[in-house]
């Protein structure tokens, strides 16, 4: 349970990000590019020059039979919406979480406010929880807002260009409610854990970059038609990731002490 003292810390951490224009723009620019600009380019390409989508042929060939028989434009758009875009929603929480977590932990260390925080009547574990939760809230807020923005923009574009809507499939539920939160939690814990030893925000953020690497490989796999994940596999991956995230978070907090944190 979160107590009122932890709530005060979470509120302060969130406010320090939302009131910092530089930090906020860093967190918002990547999602904007990934969820508005990218799908727009896809939709426009599919509408105006669908024959240029030859590179996606391998992947289209892998699509379930039910989706065949529709126009090339519809197929490409569906592919973009349900197979490519979800990957961005794994990258966005990692990115948002890493910026937030690094600033809220190593940032405090750099600005010498961490020691003051340690003198408050909260255990180190409670401080860690509050900080992780603050980063998690920001990360999920950015992710869900990005999703809402993407849906609104793409649906309007599709309606204007082809007069039809293309609603997201069931995979999105698993992605948004299981995989994104789990990945976000892993990234935050990784940074908070690394922050104990890291002396600068950059050093802490670099750790999360390692998490993005497998995501990029996954994306390449998707685009080349190598991997096509269905909802059940996605669900299993989501559950495994969520369990891993919780175990990782708990183990990370047990191994610290004031002495190590302040070093």
């Amino acid at each position, binding site marked *: 349970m979160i*107590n*009122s*003292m932890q709530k*005060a*810390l979470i509120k*302060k951490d969130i406010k*320090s990000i939302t*009131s*910092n224009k530089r930090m906020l723009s860093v967190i918002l620019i990547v999602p904007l590019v990934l969820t508005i600009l990218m799908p727009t380019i896809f939709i426009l390409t599919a509408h105006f020059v669908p024959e240029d989508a030859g590179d996606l042929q391998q992947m289209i060939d892998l699509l379930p039979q039910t989706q065949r028989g529709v126009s090339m434009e519809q197929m490409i758009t569906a592919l973009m919406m349900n197979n490519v875009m979800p990957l961005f929603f794994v990258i966005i929480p990692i990115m948002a979480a890493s910026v937030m977590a690094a600033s809220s932990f190593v940032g405090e260390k750099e*600005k*010498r*406010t961490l*020691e*003051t*925080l*340690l*003198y*408050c*009547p*909260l*255990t180190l574990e*409670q401080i860690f929880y509050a900080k992780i939760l603050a980063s998690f809230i920001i990360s999920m807020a950015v992710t869900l807002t990005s999703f809402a923005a993407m849906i609104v923009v793409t649906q309007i574009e599709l309606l204007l260009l082809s007069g039809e809507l293309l609603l997201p499939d069931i995979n999105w539920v698993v992605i948004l409610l299981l995989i994104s939160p789990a990945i976000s939690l892993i990234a935050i814990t990784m940074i908070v854990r690394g922050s104990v030893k890291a002396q600068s925000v950059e050093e802490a953020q670099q750790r999360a970059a390692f998490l993005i690497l497998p995501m990029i490989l996954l994306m390449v796999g998707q685009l080349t038609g190598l991997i096509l994940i269905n909802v059940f596999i996605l669900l299993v991956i989501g559950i495994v990731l969520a369990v891993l995230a919780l175990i990782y978070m708990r183990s990370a907090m047990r191994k610290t*002490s*004031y*002495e190590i944190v*302040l070093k």
Partner: protein
Amino acid sequence: MKAVITNVMSKTYAQTNKALNRVSLSLSKGEVFGFLGPNGAGKTTMVKLLNGMLTPTEGRCWVCDIDPSQEPEKMHRIAGVVTEHAQMYDHLSGYENLVFYGNLFGIRSSESQSRAQSLLEKLGLTNARDKKLGAYSTGMRQRLSLARAMIHRPEVLFLDEPTSGLDPESVHSVNQLIKQLAREEGTTVFLCTHQLRYAQEICSSYGLINEGVLLADGTLEQLRSMVFAGMTVSIKADGVPPEFQSRGSGGQDYEVKVESESEIPPIVKRIVDHGGSIYRVTSKRMSLEEIYFALIEQGKGGDGK
């Protein structure tokens, strides 16, 4: 119940660097205790040990019967700390910082706000209330840190060099506040400083530390008795008797050490009877600074610690 107890406590860094060596102390409630020594003597290590930020390598300590290495968060509830490394948030105003720390100590927002306002007034920061901390001078920051440490009305206040960077006027207002706290609210103050003259102004007892070793502790009188309990009489005179000649410090100035004030009139009488002229007679007891250096010189702790 004692406010602070340390029992043969040591702290060794990296297995070789002994920052504190078997220090035993006992502080009563409401005491303003000056923990004095040069930079690197072990003062900050002591504060960190007493606040549970470090774990003793040897021995134990208690603050109001709580062992900070076992229950740090419980101990933090009753303690306030000002150290050079414990800063506040530059992007928040002085007032917002205080309210935040109040909330962090579990104080309700409305109470936290009124407490913040009254502390800002006491420390002369009312005009800077809504200024961002980034625009504060070093002295203002230091005073705000003091307000932050007092926001939850702590029973024990740990102040590590609280007046560094302060102008004389601010030093005066901080001193008044510390004295008032101890007198009116019974707060125990553990004050670390290397400015011995400053400590002598406000402390009721002292611990003198050098290279991690506690040289002596006690009231000023107790410390004096470990070195020299008497006083030095300075006389400016002409035509002094022969026995004073060897005590001259140049020209007409002479210095005589006496055990008590009652020995001064016979000295004056002796000079007058000898036909000498006296221009000035002053007496001075050993200052804390002199005691400290005398103890270091002796290379011993008066009470054997």
